[in-house]
Protein backbone atom coordinates (compact mmCIF):
# COMPACT_ATOMS: atom_id res chain seq x y z
CA UNK A 1 0.00 0.00 0.00
CA UNK A 2 1.21 3.46 -0.85
CA UNK A 3 1.99 5.61 2.16
CA UNK A 4 2.63 9.34 2.41
CA UNK A 5 4.30 11.32 5.16
CA UNK A 6 3.66 15.00 5.81
CA UNK A 7 3.39 17.50 8.63
CA UNK A 8 -0.34 18.23 8.34
CA UNK A 9 -3.08 16.28 6.56
CA UNK A 10 -6.36 18.06 5.95
CA UNK A 11 -9.55 16.18 5.11
CA UNK A 12 -11.78 18.25 2.84
CA UNK A 13 -11.03 21.05 0.37
CA UNK A 14 -13.92 23.33 1.30
CA UNK A 15 -13.29 26.84 2.60
CA UNK A 16 -12.20 25.61 6.06
CA UNK A 17 -9.76 23.03 4.73
CA UNK A 18 -8.25 25.30 2.09
CA UNK A 19 -7.78 28.19 4.53
CA UNK A 20 -6.09 25.87 7.04
CA UNK A 21 -3.90 24.50 4.25
CA UNK A 22 -2.90 27.96 3.05
CA UNK A 23 -1.76 29.10 6.48
CA UNK A 24 0.04 25.82 7.22
CA UNK A 25 1.84 25.89 3.87
CA UNK A 26 2.74 29.58 4.22
CA UNK A 27 4.45 28.69 7.49
CA UNK A 28 6.54 26.12 5.63
CA UNK A 29 4.70 23.02 6.78
CA UNK A 30 4.46 20.05 4.46
CA UNK A 31 0.69 20.04 3.94
CA UNK A 32 -1.62 17.64 2.10
CA UNK A 33 -5.33 18.28 1.52
CA UNK A 34 -7.45 15.38 0.38
CA UNK A 35 -10.78 15.92 -1.37
CA UNK A 36 -13.32 13.17 -1.87
CA UNK A 37 -15.11 14.75 -4.80
CA UNK A 38 -14.05 14.92 -8.43
CA UNK A 39 -14.34 18.70 -8.46
CA UNK A 40 -13.69 21.22 -5.72
CA UNK A 41 -16.85 23.17 -4.90
CA UNK A 42 -19.20 20.87 -6.80
CA UNK A 43 -21.77 19.46 -6.49
CA UNK A 44 -23.05 22.48 -4.60
CA UNK A 45 -24.30 22.13 -1.02
CA UNK A 46 -24.95 25.75 -0.22
CA UNK A 47 -27.35 28.70 -0.57
CA UNK A 48 -24.32 30.89 -1.37
CA UNK A 49 -25.35 34.00 0.58
CA UNK A 50 -22.62 35.63 2.68
CA UNK A 51 -22.06 38.92 4.47
CA UNK A 52 -19.13 41.11 3.42
CA UNK A 53 -17.24 42.22 6.48
CA UNK A 54 -15.44 39.02 7.40
CA UNK A 55 -13.62 38.62 4.06
CA UNK A 56 -11.05 41.22 5.01
CA UNK A 57 -10.65 39.65 8.45
CA UNK A 58 -9.49 36.37 6.88
CA UNK A 59 -7.43 38.01 4.14
CA UNK A 60 -9.66 37.24 1.17
CA UNK A 61 -9.96 40.03 -1.41
CA UNK A 62 -13.42 40.15 -3.05
CA UNK A 63 -13.09 38.91 -6.63
CA UNK A 64 -15.75 39.40 -9.33
CA UNK A 65 -14.82 35.93 -10.55
CA UNK A 66 -16.69 34.33 -7.64
CA UNK A 67 -19.16 37.08 -6.70
CA UNK A 68 -22.36 36.27 -8.52
CA UNK A 69 -24.47 39.16 -7.22
CA UNK A 70 -23.99 42.15 -4.93
CA UNK A 71 -27.02 42.69 -2.70
CA UNK A 72 -28.64 46.05 -1.90
CA UNK A 73 -30.33 44.56 1.13
CA UNK A 74 -32.58 41.85 2.46
CA UNK A 75 -36.27 41.31 3.01
CA UNK A 76 -37.81 39.24 5.78
CA UNK A 77 -41.38 38.10 5.04
CA UNK A 78 -43.83 36.93 7.70
CA UNK A 79 -46.51 34.21 7.30
CA UNK A 80 -49.23 36.78 6.46
CA UNK A 81 -46.98 38.67 4.08
CA UNK A 82 -45.76 41.51 6.31
CA UNK A 83 -42.27 42.47 5.21
CA UNK A 84 -39.28 44.04 6.82
CA UNK A 85 -36.81 45.48 4.35
CA UNK A 86 -33.20 46.06 5.26
CA UNK A 87 -31.28 48.35 2.98
CA UNK A 88 -27.53 48.28 2.70
CA UNK A 89 -27.08 51.54 4.63
CA UNK A 90 -28.83 49.92 7.59
CA UNK A 91 -28.18 46.30 6.92
CA UNK A 92 -24.83 46.22 8.64
CA UNK A 93 -23.02 42.95 8.51
CA UNK A 94 -25.94 40.69 7.68
CA UNK A 95 -26.22 41.49 3.97
CA UNK A 96 -23.68 41.01 1.29
CA UNK A 97 -22.88 38.86 -1.70
CA UNK A 98 -24.34 35.83 -3.38
CA UNK A 99 -21.37 33.69 -4.38
CA UNK A 100 -20.52 31.18 -7.05
CA UNK A 101 -19.35 28.61 -4.54
CA UNK A 102 -17.81 26.29 -7.11
CA UNK A 103 -15.50 29.15 -8.13
CA UNK A 104 -15.01 30.53 -4.62
CA UNK A 105 -13.92 27.15 -3.28
CA UNK A 106 -11.54 26.66 -6.19
CA UNK A 107 -10.04 30.11 -5.61
CA UNK A 108 -9.30 29.26 -1.98
CA UNK A 109 -7.86 25.87 -2.94
CA UNK A 110 -5.70 27.61 -5.53
CA UNK A 111 -4.41 30.00 -2.85
CA UNK A 112 -3.51 26.98 -0.73
CA UNK A 113 -1.74 25.35 -3.67
CA UNK A 114 0.12 28.61 -4.46
CA UNK A 115 1.31 28.63 -0.84
CA UNK A 116 2.72 25.13 -1.36
CA UNK A 117 -0.01 22.78 -0.18
CA UNK A 118 -0.48 19.53 -2.09
CA UNK A 119 -4.01 18.60 -3.13
CA UNK A 120 -5.14 15.02 -3.74
CA UNK A 121 -8.45 14.86 -5.58
CA UNK A 122 -10.88 11.96 -5.48
CA UNK A 123 -9.29 10.84 -2.27
CA UNK A 124 -11.69 10.02 0.54
CA UNK A 125 -10.81 9.42 4.15
CA UNK A 126 -12.11 6.10 5.46
CA UNK A 127 -10.67 6.04 8.99
CA UNK A 128 -7.97 7.44 11.24
CA UNK A 129 -4.76 5.59 12.10
CA UNK A 130 -3.67 5.15 15.70
CA UNK A 131 -0.30 3.82 16.84
CA UNK A 132 0.02 2.94 20.52
CA UNK A 133 -3.16 4.97 21.05
CA UNK A 134 -1.77 8.09 19.38
CA UNK A 135 -3.45 9.60 16.33
CA UNK A 136 -0.78 9.42 13.61
CA UNK A 137 -2.68 9.84 10.35
CA UNK A 138 -5.55 8.74 8.17
CA UNK A 139 -6.55 5.88 5.91
CA UNK A 140 -8.01 6.87 2.58
CA UNK A 141 -8.96 5.67 -0.85
CA UNK A 142 -7.27 7.62 -3.61
CA UNK A 143 -8.62 7.01 -7.12
CA UNK A 144 -9.90 3.74 -5.74
CA UNK A 145 -6.57 2.61 -4.26
CA UNK A 146 -6.18 2.29 -0.47
CA UNK A 147 -3.47 4.62 0.90
CA UNK A 148 -2.24 5.82 4.27
CA UNK A 149 -1.17 9.38 5.07
CA UNK A 150 0.91 9.92 8.20
CA UNK A 151 1.05 13.38 9.74
CA UNK A 152 1.78 15.21 12.99
CA UNK A 153 -1.75 16.59 13.02
CA UNK A 154 -5.02 15.80 11.26
CA UNK A 155 -7.37 18.68 10.35
CA UNK A 156 -10.98 17.50 10.10
CA UNK A 157 -12.58 19.80 7.54
CA UNK A 158 -15.09 17.27 6.25
CA UNK A 159 -18.12 19.51 6.55
CA UNK A 160 -21.55 18.45 7.79
CA UNK A 161 -20.69 14.76 7.38
CA UNK A 162 -18.09 15.24 10.14
CA UNK A 163 -16.90 11.63 10.25
CA UNK A 164 -13.18 12.16 10.83
CA UNK A 165 -13.74 13.53 14.33
CA UNK A 166 -16.04 10.60 15.11
CA UNK A 167 -13.51 8.05 13.88
CA UNK A 168 -11.11 9.80 16.25
CA UNK A 169 -13.57 9.43 19.12
CA UNK A 170 -15.27 12.85 19.29
CA UNK A 171 -19.06 12.79 19.01
CA UNK A 172 -20.30 15.36 16.48
CA UNK A 173 -23.89 14.33 15.69
CA UNK A 174 -26.36 17.15 16.45
CA UNK A 175 -29.70 16.64 18.18
CA UNK A 176 -32.80 16.61 15.99
CA UNK A 177 -33.77 20.15 17.01
CA UNK A 178 -30.27 21.27 16.01
CA UNK A 179 -30.44 19.97 12.44
CA UNK A 180 -32.05 21.77 9.52
CA UNK A 181 -32.67 19.58 6.52
CA UNK A 182 -32.53 21.52 3.26
CA UNK A 183 -33.29 21.43 -0.42
CA UNK A 184 -32.69 24.14 -2.96
CA UNK A 185 -33.49 24.74 -6.60
CA UNK A 186 -31.49 27.04 -8.78
CA UNK A 187 -34.40 28.56 -10.65
CA UNK A 188 -34.45 30.60 -13.83
CA UNK A 189 -37.21 32.56 -15.59
CA UNK A 190 -38.49 34.03 -12.33
CA UNK A 191 -39.62 37.58 -11.50
CA UNK A 192 -37.98 38.38 -8.18
CA UNK A 193 -36.22 41.57 -7.13
CA UNK A 194 -32.58 40.83 -8.01
CA UNK A 195 -31.32 43.39 -5.47
CA UNK A 196 -32.60 41.72 -2.32
CA UNK A 197 -32.09 38.42 -0.54
CA UNK A 198 -35.45 37.29 0.78
CA UNK A 199 -36.12 35.21 3.88
CA UNK A 200 -39.63 33.81 4.45
CA UNK A 201 -40.63 32.46 7.85
CA UNK A 202 -43.72 30.70 9.15
CA UNK A 203 -44.86 27.42 10.63
CA UNK A 204 -46.66 26.33 7.46
CA UNK A 205 -43.89 27.62 5.20
CA UNK A 206 -40.71 26.23 6.76
CA UNK A 207 -41.33 24.63 10.19
CA UNK A 208 -38.45 25.53 12.51
CA UNK A 209 -36.39 27.02 9.68
CA UNK A 210 -36.87 29.42 6.81
CA UNK A 211 -37.26 29.61 3.07
CA UNK A 212 -34.84 31.70 1.05
CA UNK A 213 -34.63 33.40 -2.32
CA UNK A 214 -31.06 34.48 -3.07
CA UNK A 215 -30.73 36.25 -6.45
CA UNK A 216 -28.17 34.89 -8.89
CA UNK A 217 -28.68 37.43 -11.68
CA UNK A 218 -30.38 37.03 -15.08
CA UNK A 219 -33.84 36.37 -13.61
CA UNK A 220 -32.51 33.44 -11.63
CA UNK A 221 -32.07 32.68 -7.94
CA UNK A 222 -31.31 30.02 -5.39
CA UNK A 223 -34.73 29.16 -4.00
CA UNK A 224 -34.38 26.85 -1.04
CA UNK A 225 -35.69 25.77 2.31
CA UNK A 226 -34.45 24.47 5.63
CA UNK A 227 -36.83 22.58 7.91
CA UNK A 228 -35.95 21.61 11.48
CA UNK A 229 -35.36 17.84 11.47
CA UNK A 230 -37.38 17.43 14.66
CA UNK A 231 -40.40 18.99 12.95
CA UNK A 232 -40.31 16.76 9.86
CA UNK A 233 -43.50 14.70 9.99
CA UNK A 234 -43.04 12.77 6.76
CA UNK A 235 -39.95 11.77 4.79
CA UNK A 236 -39.28 14.40 2.12
CA UNK A 237 -41.00 17.25 4.01
CA UNK A 238 -38.42 19.87 2.88
CA UNK A 239 -39.19 19.14 -0.77
CA UNK A 240 -42.92 19.12 -0.05
CA UNK A 241 -42.82 22.57 1.58
CA UNK A 242 -40.55 24.06 -1.09
CA UNK A 243 -42.71 22.79 -3.96
CA UNK A 244 -45.84 24.06 -2.18
CA UNK A 245 -44.35 27.55 -1.78
CA UNK A 246 -43.18 27.73 -5.40
CA UNK A 247 -46.59 26.64 -6.69
CA UNK A 248 -48.27 29.40 -4.70
CA UNK A 249 -45.90 32.26 -5.49
CA UNK A 250 -46.73 34.32 -8.60
CA UNK A 251 -43.10 35.31 -9.09
CA UNK A 252 -41.91 31.72 -9.30
CA UNK A 253 -44.72 29.91 -11.07
CA UNK A 254 -43.08 30.04 -14.51
CA UNK A 255 -39.67 29.21 -13.09
CA UNK A 256 -37.56 26.38 -14.41
CA UNK A 257 -35.09 24.45 -12.31
CA UNK A 258 -31.45 24.33 -13.45
CA UNK A 259 -30.00 22.52 -10.45
CA UNK A 260 -31.30 20.58 -7.44
CA UNK A 261 -29.22 20.74 -4.28
CA UNK A 262 -29.62 18.89 -0.98
CA UNK A 263 -27.88 19.39 2.30
CA UNK A 264 -28.13 19.72 6.02
CA UNK A 265 -26.84 22.25 8.50
CA UNK A 266 -26.31 22.06 12.22
CA UNK A 267 -27.90 24.81 14.30
CA UNK A 268 -26.22 24.01 17.62
CA UNK A 269 -23.63 26.14 19.43
CA UNK A 270 -20.51 24.25 18.26
CA UNK A 271 -18.68 21.26 19.72
CA UNK A 272 -17.69 21.31 23.39
CA UNK A 273 -14.18 20.54 22.21
CA UNK A 274 -12.94 21.15 18.65
CA UNK A 275 -9.48 19.73 19.39
CA UNK A 276 -7.88 16.57 20.67
CA UNK A 277 -4.32 15.27 20.68
CA UNK A 278 -3.11 15.59 17.06
CA UNK A 279 -6.55 16.68 15.82
CA UNK A 280 -8.22 19.99 14.97
CA UNK A 281 -11.82 20.22 13.76
CA UNK A 282 -12.85 23.28 11.71
CA UNK A 283 -16.01 24.81 10.24
CA UNK A 284 -19.17 22.76 9.75
CA UNK A 285 -17.37 19.63 10.94
CA UNK A 286 -16.99 21.34 14.35
CA UNK A 287 -20.62 22.51 14.12
CA UNK A 288 -19.37 26.11 14.16
CA UNK A 289 -22.23 27.76 12.27
CA UNK A 290 -24.63 30.63 12.88
CA UNK A 291 -27.69 28.76 14.24
CA UNK A 292 -30.12 31.46 13.07
CA UNK A 293 -29.03 31.81 9.45
CA UNK A 294 -27.33 28.45 8.99
CA UNK A 295 -24.47 30.38 7.41
CA UNK A 296 -21.07 28.79 7.94
CA UNK A 297 -18.66 29.98 5.24
CA UNK A 298 -17.21 32.82 7.30
CA UNK A 299 -16.96 30.53 10.33
CA UNK A 300 -15.16 27.89 8.26
CA UNK A 301 -12.73 30.47 6.87
CA UNK A 302 -12.01 31.91 10.30
CA UNK A 303 -11.54 28.54 12.00
CA UNK A 304 -9.41 27.33 9.08
CA UNK A 305 -7.19 30.38 9.40
CA UNK A 306 -6.93 30.00 13.19
CA UNK A 307 -6.08 26.31 12.79
CA UNK A 308 -3.33 27.08 10.29
CA UNK A 309 -1.78 29.75 12.50
CA UNK A 310 -1.89 27.60 15.63
CA UNK A 311 -0.46 24.57 13.79
CA UNK A 312 2.47 26.72 12.62
CA UNK A 313 3.22 27.55 16.26
CA UNK A 314 2.79 23.93 17.29
CA UNK A 315 5.25 22.84 14.60
CA UNK A 316 7.88 25.19 16.02
CA UNK A 317 7.42 23.60 19.44
CA UNK A 318 7.00 20.10 17.96
CA UNK A 319 3.97 19.64 20.19
CA UNK A 320 0.52 18.87 18.75
CA UNK A 321 -1.12 17.73 21.98
CA UNK A 322 -4.59 18.94 22.92
CA UNK A 323 -2.94 21.32 25.40
CA UNK A 324 -0.70 22.73 22.68
CA UNK A 325 -3.72 23.22 20.37
CA UNK A 326 -5.62 25.13 23.04
CA UNK A 327 -4.93 28.55 21.47
CA UNK A 328 -7.16 27.39 18.57
CA UNK A 329 -10.08 26.82 20.93
CA UNK A 330 -9.47 30.20 22.52
CA UNK A 331 -9.31 32.02 19.19
CA UNK A 332 -12.55 30.72 17.75
CA UNK A 333 -14.43 30.94 21.04
CA UNK A 334 -13.26 34.50 21.74
CA UNK A 335 -14.31 35.57 18.26
CA UNK A 336 -17.57 33.68 17.77
CA UNK A 337 -18.85 31.63 20.70
CA UNK A 338 -21.04 34.25 22.45
CA UNK A 339 -22.80 35.22 19.25
CA UNK A 340 -23.32 31.60 18.20
CA UNK A 341 -24.70 30.73 21.63
CA UNK A 342 -27.01 33.75 21.62
CA UNK A 343 -28.31 32.92 18.15
CA UNK A 344 -28.80 29.30 19.16
CA UNK A 345 -31.00 30.39 22.09
CA UNK A 346 -32.87 32.79 19.80
CA UNK A 347 -33.43 30.01 17.27
CA UNK A 348 -34.84 27.73 19.94
CA UNK A 349 -37.25 30.46 21.07
CA UNK A 350 -38.30 31.60 17.58
CA UNK A 351 -39.14 27.99 16.79
CA UNK A 352 -41.79 28.04 19.54
CA UNK A 353 -43.65 31.11 18.20
CA UNK A 354 -47.00 30.82 16.46
CA UNK A 355 -47.60 32.58 13.15
CA UNK A 356 -49.56 35.47 14.73
CA UNK A 357 -46.63 36.30 16.97
CA UNK A 358 -44.20 36.10 14.04
CA UNK A 359 -46.45 38.53 12.12
CA UNK A 360 -46.41 40.83 15.14
CA UNK A 361 -42.63 40.65 15.45
CA UNK A 362 -42.12 41.57 11.81
CA UNK A 363 -44.56 44.48 12.20
CA UNK A 364 -42.72 45.67 15.31
CA UNK A 365 -39.25 45.58 13.82
CA UNK A 366 -40.40 47.17 10.56
CA UNK A 367 -41.79 50.17 12.47
CA UNK A 368 -38.93 50.51 14.98
CA UNK A 369 -35.92 52.71 14.49
CA UNK A 370 -33.24 50.07 14.73
CA UNK A 371 -30.17 51.85 13.41
CA UNK A 372 -27.77 49.32 11.98
CA UNK A 373 -29.74 46.15 11.45
CA UNK A 374 -28.19 42.92 12.64
CA UNK A 375 -29.40 39.98 14.67
CA UNK A 376 -28.20 41.69 17.86
CA UNK A 377 -30.18 44.90 17.29
CA UNK A 378 -33.26 42.97 16.16
CA UNK A 379 -33.21 40.92 19.34
CA UNK A 380 -32.88 44.15 21.34
CA UNK A 381 -36.13 45.47 19.85
CA UNK A 382 -37.83 42.11 20.35
CA UNK A 383 -36.63 42.11 23.97
CA UNK A 384 -38.55 45.36 24.61
CA UNK A 385 -41.83 44.19 23.09
CA UNK A 386 -41.72 40.44 23.61
CA UNK A 387 -39.41 39.81 26.57
CA UNK A 388 -40.53 36.16 26.68
CA UNK A 389 -38.79 35.49 23.37
CA UNK A 390 -35.39 36.29 24.82
CA UNK A 391 -35.97 34.83 28.29
CA UNK A 392 -32.91 33.01 29.53
CA UNK A 393 -30.34 34.78 27.41
CA UNK A 394 -31.15 38.44 28.09
CA UNK A 395 -27.66 38.96 29.42
CA UNK A 396 -26.21 38.20 25.97
CA UNK A 397 -28.29 40.99 24.39
Amino acid at each position, binding site marked *: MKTYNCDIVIVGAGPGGSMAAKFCAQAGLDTIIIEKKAEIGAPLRCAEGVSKKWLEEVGIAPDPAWICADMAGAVIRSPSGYTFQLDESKAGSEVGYVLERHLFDKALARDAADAGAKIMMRTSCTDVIRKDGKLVGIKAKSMGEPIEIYADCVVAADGYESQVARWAGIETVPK*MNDIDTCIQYRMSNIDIDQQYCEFVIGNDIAPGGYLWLFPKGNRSANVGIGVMAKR*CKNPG*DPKYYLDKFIAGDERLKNGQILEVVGGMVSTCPGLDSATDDNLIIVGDAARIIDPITGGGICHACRTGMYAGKVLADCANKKDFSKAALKPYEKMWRDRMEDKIYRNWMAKERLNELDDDTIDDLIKIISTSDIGEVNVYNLLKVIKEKYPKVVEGFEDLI
Partner: protein
Amino acid sequence: MTILVDFYKCLHCGGCVGSCPKNAIYLNDFVLEFNDKCNSCGRCVKICPVAALRME
Protein backbone atom coordinates in the same frame (compact mmCIF):
# COMPACT_ATOMS: atom_id res chain seq x y z
CA MET B 1 -35.24 -4.07 9.24
CA THR B 2 -32.78 -2.53 6.80
CA ILE B 3 -32.46 0.88 5.19
CA LEU B 4 -32.90 0.98 1.42
CA VAL B 5 -31.73 3.82 -0.82
CA ASP B 6 -33.52 5.04 -3.92
CA PHE B 7 -30.52 6.22 -5.93
CA TYR B 8 -32.80 7.94 -8.41
CA LYS B 9 -33.95 10.29 -5.64
CA CYS B 10 -30.74 10.64 -3.59
CA LEU B 11 -28.99 14.02 -4.06
CA HIS B 12 -25.73 12.77 -2.47
CA CYS B 13 -25.93 15.63 0.02
CA GLY B 14 -24.40 13.69 2.90
CA GLY B 15 -27.06 14.91 5.33
CA CYS B 16 -27.83 11.40 6.54
CA VAL B 17 -24.11 10.72 6.99
CA GLY B 18 -23.62 13.63 9.37
CA SER B 19 -26.89 12.93 11.21
CA CYS B 20 -26.38 9.20 11.81
CA PRO B 21 -25.94 8.56 15.56
CA LYS B 22 -23.97 5.37 14.82
CA ASN B 23 -21.68 6.82 12.12
CA ALA B 24 -22.94 3.89 10.07
CA ILE B 25 -23.32 5.63 6.68
CA TYR B 26 -20.58 6.44 4.18
CA LEU B 27 -21.11 8.51 1.06
CA ASN B 28 -18.84 7.15 -1.61
CA ASP B 29 -19.33 9.95 -4.13
CA PHE B 30 -22.75 8.96 -5.44
CA VAL B 31 -23.30 5.77 -3.50
CA LEU B 32 -24.51 5.53 0.10
CA GLU B 33 -23.05 2.60 1.98
CA PHE B 34 -24.44 1.37 5.30
CA ASN B 35 -22.11 -0.59 7.59
CA ASP B 36 -23.06 -3.14 10.22
CA LYS B 37 -23.24 -0.49 12.95
CA CYS B 38 -26.63 0.55 11.52
CA ASN B 39 -29.38 -0.38 13.97
CA SER B 40 -32.21 0.82 11.70
CA CYS B 41 -33.14 3.67 14.05
CA GLY B 42 -34.81 5.40 11.10
CA ARG B 43 -33.42 8.86 11.73
CA CYS B 44 -32.02 9.12 8.19
CA VAL B 45 -35.36 8.02 6.72
CA LYS B 46 -37.20 10.68 8.69
CA ILE B 47 -34.96 13.59 7.74
CA CYS B 48 -33.86 12.96 4.15
CA PRO B 49 -34.95 16.13 2.32
CA VAL B 50 -36.18 14.15 -0.70
CA ALA B 51 -37.39 10.89 0.90
CA ALA B 52 -34.69 8.85 -0.81
CA LEU B 53 -34.46 6.39 2.08
CA ARG B 54 -36.93 3.85 3.39
CA MET B 55 -36.99 1.06 5.90
CA GLU B 56 -38.05 -2.46 5.06
